[in-house]
């Protein structure tokens, strides 16, 4: 089983990430001879309080990601409906070689601009790995 370990920053679980178009769309680009975008490095916040994952608008725009689905989400102002995008997300330690924890096809909502992170990793992604928080040592580990 592969493992990634990160320091807890303040009270936040923050990790390196890379975002790209979802794998089926990248495959379609490949088979039709279209140039595929490079993955974009990002700063990700691990949030077990969110069912869904989110990615900053500037990343989605740079990738040319497409809104394909819609999701109803409970927020402070009640239930709202918003378009969601298909992307692939990798969690990694940028200072070390792979392995990366990669989810090739994730539906994400758009994250507002001007925040100290570019990606929120929600339970939809976290349920695919094991997350261990070592509070006394101020580290957290992702096993996959």
């Amino acid at each position, binding site marked *: 089983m592969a493992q990634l370990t990160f320091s807890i920053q303040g009270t936040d679980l923050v990790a390196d990430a890379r975002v790209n178009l979802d794998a089926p769309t990248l495959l379609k680009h490949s088979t039709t001879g279209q140039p595929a975008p490079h993955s974009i490095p990002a700063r990700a916040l691990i949030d077990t309080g969110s069912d*869904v994952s989110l990615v900053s608008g500037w990343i989605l725009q740079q990738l*040319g990601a497409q809104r394909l689905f819609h999701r109803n989400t*409970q927020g402070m102002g009640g*239930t709202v409906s918003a378009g969601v995008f298909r992307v692939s997300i990798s969690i990694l330690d940028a200072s070390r070689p792979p392995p990366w924890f990669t989810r090739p096809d994730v539906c994400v909502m758009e994250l507002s601009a001007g925040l100290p992170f570019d990606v929120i990793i929600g339970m939809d992604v976290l349920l695919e790995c094991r997350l261990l928080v070592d509070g006394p040592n101020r580290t957290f580990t992702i096993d996959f």
Partner: protein
Amino acid sequence: MDDQPVATRPPVWPTTIHWTELPEDKAEGGNSTEWNFYRREVGRLLAEGHEGRWVLIKGEQIIGIWDTREEALRELNERYLMQAALVHQILTREPVFRGPIRCSLWRS
């Protein structure tokens, strides 16, 4: 006295929403046109027996209805790759997801 452990109680937030209560998407662009069209059509689609099937909508036109998401996505990729469109499962009650704890961070 209610002695049920708190963690096993059902959530206090709504986990599903009836189709008649689906919120409008007030965003400009994206696939808000397709979503708001779906909201108007979903009652008819359910009445016609399409519960659980997947619809592909482009603009204000239903392109087709399939049994699986993969079939709808295949058609989408053939005809509308990298264009705004909507692939959606037709349901009487739709799931409602929790947004992030810092829930003011996301936008529609």
